[in-house]
């Protein structure tokens, strides 16, 4: 030990003697063997030394220290009791060490400052004196007594109680021996701003592997946004980018951009960090940063890097010098429209393409998932529009009509589609050589055929009718769906290579093999798999008298006959429609039948429905179309009998109904009104009350309602090689839903034929997404939804289409109404544009566990948003800017290429800079943000330099404390910048200008200054997400939300979790030089830890008394670290603690009912003796 060497233990200068008075104290060196010779001594009867520190006058000024010593000096086991001026000082410690030797002390009570301050100091001292360091108790007489109470009896009494309790408690201490755990020689730096960059480089330079985690796609942080840096005015990018490149190229640094810390386990020297690698959708290594993707991206959203003053595309690179120099796609979950679409159409994508007039691409995109764009664009029930978020603002985007527009455009521009549009969709050749039979050519059969053919399968479609298209063709009348569109879209599919269509070829599903007919059995022999998509072509019957009469049709049969006649198919005769037609039912088929009957010449068409309009399952818009055409509705009536007159229909007798209680579908159940019937004269009756499977007995299993039974996820039937989907499985549903099930069935068939697991990776039902952070535009244009033009009801007497579609202008205008909810529209244009195939829109977040020994938090700051300070009008008056916005304007790579101009492009003539916006303000941030004065001076200089405008700074105090700062202030003053001492009170507009109102406190006068531009010098706040990060890393934050250092003066880079350090502005506002210094300091602290071979783990951990443990497993349940487990001991299960995992929180100890777990150093007996003494200690001698 040498005199006058600097102390190694940190000592609070506020209360401690000058360093010269202190002695060198060795740092703790706790080894069990050090205590071997003293083991017996430690276990002997307690011999306690009590030391009450006066702490100069810090304690002694308030507490009667001699009286405290006197009061406890005769307590049992107390051998020595003394007071000294500074117990933490060298002489103070030495006197204790001498006492230990002279009086064979084996326990020590120090009554001084908080144990959080010097407990380590005393422990080290005990170690040096050969006493186990855990045989120490510290009574806190300073922070908890002398500093908060005034001198007096009560205060001294409190001190006595605390010391006496510490004496009673220390007698129960046992020697403890910390475990040693090796240190993982790697570090993680969280945050890639200048602090994180500096810390990473320092650590890497010293040979430590570093993982730099940055949540944005590029490192650089706020410094990358700056133009010049004060006071030297060197270009920010010029000094930062070389360092960024160093990070990228340093062999010891692993850069994890676009990543966030998800979870932290472990402890100092042995952390396990789980990092979420957010999906970037662009392969960083493959991306050449060529910018081709940006050219095709249809989405424009404000650039964060430019503070919203410029736009960027959804696939982007934050700035040109980004590191890693690769693009990323900004996705905010799945757009609600796409999520709602049963067929999975990339809705936002095709809408975005239409908005840019890229109709061919739009059509191709729709085509990927929807084989019938034109059909679906006309008859879809469009759940996408129901979910459209634009509806929350005004009306949903007209997605269905936009889809129709794209399809119609494709129909009218065949030259753009030289090759069959569906062919490009080729996915692979998995199924080359496989043969699949498809029964039914409806939408589901065609979808399955197309999907399988795209995988090079050979598909043969067997259609019972003489026309293809199923219900699309024979169930939907022409005024809703023109035949030429149908023809094109069906033809697009059946003309694909690998698809063969057999019309008029019915297949019997009956189990009996009928030699003459084509049967399922035979198809199964000839094909590798069979798909059944036979739809629901049989109309249900009511079972009332007169249903068999001539002039009574089922709705579905009626429509089919009419469609046949339009298709020139000779199958039965055109239905005859009388003057008065009754259509029974409330669904879409009923509406179609009614409107068709009218077109066939009926004079009076009535829809009879047993409930009311509110309960009608038909779509609202269809009901309205029908009403417009004069169709009558007779509600609350239920047919009882169709009455004939001479063999043909003459009337229908109906039961009047009323609505009763809701049934299982939630609709109110109709109940007959007894005795109330009505007879309506009718010539034709069309029964449209439901559809059934058109097959009686079939080979595969049927479900409860007669539909084909399939596995709801795989669509496999009871026979392994037979799959089914569509209406035949689900009952009648919309085309888009049928297509969706077709895709799934086709995928199952593909997997079946490839011998893959059918269920693997399938979504279990509809996945409920976590609330996605949809893109919220700051403003949205108020264009209303485009109205589609249609033919007037009076003209609609033929089977020509009712709706006429959008014009090109309408389509583009309507598409521009899209709010781009998911940011990236998933138009997939970038995929095609990318020459190196770096883009994968299906990427998902991945998780990586990284083991490190130390962590440095460098999560930085956010610029405060001054919108809440309404008096300054930020966000209201365009010429009010924040400092960082002017940085971008001034920056040569910024939106104005370095010209500081107003929004109108002209240079300002007078600019006001308001200081301390939101800082030093009890309503916002009470603290000084430290950087604003200096950057305001810098901006003033730049504005003077670039525009010669007059610059007036409204300030409270100028804080120019750093090296060269005051000189810079001087310089700016000489450059003619005007300084007004006084806080800006208000900014108001006046005649194309803004007027700043303030008080000049030097003159004591109000100031009113018209200016062209106002710059708000906003301060800094903790970065968004700092709270979450603090929770994940278990570190605490101060009252303002900055991370809290372990000691404000002596441990400014340690967090209060061992092994986690703080760098830069995450801890407090600071400028670049200070940030870099702080970061290097943090790196040095981390290096100190990482250069040790091991760390010692606290020995104050839980211990099980296995004899008394009943094995109830409570401890196992409550432990956050999984330290206790149940293990067998003498034939029963008892708890055992894994010492390496236990952190000593005592949660299990407090929970253990039988008190079979103890927390070393905090045993029940120790706490009980402390409680007892605190409450019962008497100062009176007996």
């Amino acid at each position, binding site marked *: 030990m040498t005199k006058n060497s600097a102390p190694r233990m940190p000592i609070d200068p506020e209360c401690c003697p000058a360093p010269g008075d202190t002695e060198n104290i060795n740092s703790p060196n706790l080894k069990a063997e050090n205590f071997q010779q003293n083991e017996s001594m430690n276990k002997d009867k307690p011999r306690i030394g009590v030391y009450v520190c006066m702490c100069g006058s810090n304690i002694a000024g308030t507490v009667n220290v001699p009286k405290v010593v006197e009061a406890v000096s005769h307590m049992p086991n107390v051998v020595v009791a003394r007071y000294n001026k500074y117990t933490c000082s060298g002489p103070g410690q030495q006197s204790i060490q001498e006492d230990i030797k002279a009086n064979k002390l084996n326990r020590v009570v120090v009554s001084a400052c*908080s144990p959080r301050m010097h407990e380590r100091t005393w422990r080290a001292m005990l170690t040096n004196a050969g006493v186990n360091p855990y045989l120490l108790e510290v009574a806190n007489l300073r922070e908890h007594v002398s500093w908060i109470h005034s001198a007096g009896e009560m205060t001294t009494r409190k001190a006595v109680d605390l010391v006496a309790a510490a004496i009673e408690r220390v007698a129960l201490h046992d020697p403890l021996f910390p475990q040693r755990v090796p240190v993982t020689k790697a570090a993680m730096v969280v945050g890639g701003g200048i602090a994180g960059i500096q810390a990473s480089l320092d650590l890497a330079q010293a040979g430590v592997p570093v993982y730099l985690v940055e949540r944005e796609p590029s490192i650089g942080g706020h410094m990358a946004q700056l133009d010049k840096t004060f006071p030297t005015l060197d270009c920010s990018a010029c000094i930062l980018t070389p360092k960024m490149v160093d990070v990228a190229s340093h062999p010891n640094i692993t850069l994890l951009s676009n990543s966030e810390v998800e979870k932290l386990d472990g402890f100092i020297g042995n952390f396990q960090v789980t990092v979420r690698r957010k999906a970037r959708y662009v392969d960083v290594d493959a991306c050449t940063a060529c910018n081709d993707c940006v050219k095709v991206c249809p989405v424009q959203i404000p650039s964060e890097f430019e503070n919203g003053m410029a736009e960027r595309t959804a696939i982007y690179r934050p700035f040109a010098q980004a590191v890693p120099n690769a693009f990323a796609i900004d996705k905010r979950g799945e757009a609600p429209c796409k999520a709602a679409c049963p067929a999975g159409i990339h809705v936002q994508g095709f809408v975005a393409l239409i908005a840019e007039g890229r109709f061919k691409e739009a059509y191709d995109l729709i085509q990927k998932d929807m084989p019938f764009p034109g059909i679906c664009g006309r008859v879809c029930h469009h759940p996408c529009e129901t979910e459209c978020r634009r509806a929350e603002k005004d009306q949903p985007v007209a997605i269905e009509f936009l889809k129709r527009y794209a399809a119609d455009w494709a129909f009218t521009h065949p030259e753009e589609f030289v090759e069959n549009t569906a062919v490009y969709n080729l996915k692979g050749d998995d199924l080359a050589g496989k043969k699949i039979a498809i029964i039914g050519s409806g939408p589901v059969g065609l979808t399955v055929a197309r999907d399988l053919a795209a995988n090079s399968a050979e598909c043969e479609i067997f259609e019972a009718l003489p026309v293809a298209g199923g219900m699309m063709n024979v169930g939907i009348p022409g005024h809703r769906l023109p035949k030429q569109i149908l023809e094109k879209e069906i033809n697009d599919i059946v003309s694909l290579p690998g698809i063969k269509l057999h019309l008029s070829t019915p297949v019997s599903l009956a189990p009996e093999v009928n030699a003459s007919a084509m049967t399922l059995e035979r198809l199964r022999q000839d094909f590798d798999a069979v798909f059944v998509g036979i739809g629901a072509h049989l109309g249900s019957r009511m079972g009332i008298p007169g249903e068999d009469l001539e002039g009574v049709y089922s709705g579905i049969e009626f429509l089919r006959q009419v469609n046949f006649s339009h298709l020139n198919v000779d199958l039965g005769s055109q239905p005859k429609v009388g003057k008065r037609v009754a259509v029974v039912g409330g669904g879409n088929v009923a509406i179609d039948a009614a409107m068709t009957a009218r077109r066939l010449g009926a004079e009076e068409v009535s829809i009879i429905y047993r409930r009311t309009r509110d309960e009608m399952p038909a779509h609202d818009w269809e009901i309205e179309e029908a009403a417009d055409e004069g169709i009558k509705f007779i509600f609350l009536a239920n047919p009882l009998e169709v009455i004939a007159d001479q063999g043909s229909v003459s009337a229908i007798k109906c039961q009047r109904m009323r609505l009763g209680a809701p049934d299982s579908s939630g609709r109110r159940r109709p109940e007959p009104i007894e005795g109330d019937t009505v007879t309506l004269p009718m010539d034709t009756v069309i029964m449209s009350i439901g559809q059934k499977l058109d097959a009686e007995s079939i080979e595969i299993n049927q479900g409860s309602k007669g539909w084909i039974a399939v596995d709801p996820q795989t669509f496999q039937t009871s026979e392994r090689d037979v799959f089914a989907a569509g209406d035949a499985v689900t009952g009648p549903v919309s085309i888009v839903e049928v297509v969706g099930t077709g895709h799934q069935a086709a995928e199952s068939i593909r997997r079946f034929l490839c011998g893959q697991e059918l269920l693997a990776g399938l979504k279990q039902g509809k996945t409920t997404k976590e609330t996605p952070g949809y893109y919220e535009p700051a403003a949205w244009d108020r264009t209303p939804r485009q109205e589609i033009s249609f033919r007037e009801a009076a003209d609609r007497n033929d089977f020509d289409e009712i709706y006429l579609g959008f014009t090109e202008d309408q389509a583009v205008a309507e598409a521009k109404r899209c709010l781009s909810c998911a940011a990236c529209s998933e138009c997939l244009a970038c995929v095609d544009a990318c020459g190196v195939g770096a883009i994968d829109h299906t990427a998902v977040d991945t998780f990586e566990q990284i083991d490190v020994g130390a962590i440095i938090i460098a999560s930085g700051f956010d610029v405060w948003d001054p919108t809440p300070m309404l008096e300054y009008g930020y966000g209201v008056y365009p010429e009010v800017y924040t400092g960082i916005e002017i940085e971008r304007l001034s920056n040569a790579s910024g939106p104005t290429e370095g010209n500081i101009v107003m929004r109108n492009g002209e240079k300002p003539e007078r600019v006001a800079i308001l200081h301390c916006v939101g800082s030093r303000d009890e309503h916002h941030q009470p603290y000084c943000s430290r950087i604003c004065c200096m950057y305001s001076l810098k901006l003033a200089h730049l504005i003077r330099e670039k525009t010669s405008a007059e610059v007036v700074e409204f300030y409270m105090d100028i804080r120019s404390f750093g090296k060269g700062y005051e000189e810079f202030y001087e310089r700016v003053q000489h450059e003619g910048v005007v300084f007004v001492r006084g806080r800006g009170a208000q900014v108001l507009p006046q005649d194309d200008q803004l007027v700043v109102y303030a008080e000049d406190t030097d003159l004591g006068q109000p100031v009113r200054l018209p200016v062209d531009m106002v710059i708000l010098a906003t301060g800094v706040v903790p970065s968004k997400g700092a709270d979450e990060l*603090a929770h994940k890393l278990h570190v605490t934050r101060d009252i303002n939300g900055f991370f809290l250092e372990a000691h404000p003066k002596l441990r400014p880079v340690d967090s209060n979790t061992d092994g986690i350090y703080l760098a830069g502005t995450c801890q407090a506002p600071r400028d670049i030089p200070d940030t870099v210094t702080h970061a290097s300091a943090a790196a040095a602290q981390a290096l100190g830890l990482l250069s040790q071979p091991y760390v010692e783990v606290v020995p104050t951990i839980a211990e099980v008394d296995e004899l008394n443990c009943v094995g109830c497993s409570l401890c196992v349940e*409550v432990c956050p670290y999984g330290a206790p487990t149940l293990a067998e001991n003498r034939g029963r299960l008892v708890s055992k603690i894994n010492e390496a995992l236990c952190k*000593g929180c005592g949660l299990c100890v*407090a929970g253990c009912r039988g008190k079979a777990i103890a927390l070393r150093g905090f045993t029940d007996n120790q706490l009980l003796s402390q409680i007892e003494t605190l*409450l019962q200690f008497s100062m009176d001698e007996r």
Partner: protein
Amino acid sequence: MSESFEPKIVGFLCNWCSYAGADLAGTSRMSYPQNVRIIRVPCSGRVDPLFVVKTLIDGADGVMVLGCHPGDCHYQQGNYIAQRRYSIMHRLLEFSGLETDRLFVDWVSASEGKKFSEVVTSFTEKVRNIGPNPLRKKAESGIDVLEEVSS
């Protein structure tokens, strides 16, 4: 209630937040009444609610248990479980005849020195108003008992 009644209060403070908060109150010289005696524990989850019962029976007039704010626990979940334990114990003690205000459980962070001094002040005042603890087993100091038996 005599004017001179000085309640005895014991506070169990978690080392990481509340004890540091109390230290901060000291460092910031934010004064509060002398009645509280602080016991440092690793976590509010260490403080078996039975300590509260025992402390009251041993003669305390009020007991405070302070821990980290929810989500800030140094040990991840200690304060959450403590919260559940005390929600039950507090109601049980009330039901057994204890005045509600004799037990105070709250969250004080390391930066809330001001809050600490405020809660101690207001709690002391409350307990002073309720008066001495009726559950207390032993007399104010053991000496009184001795005098009784030897007289």
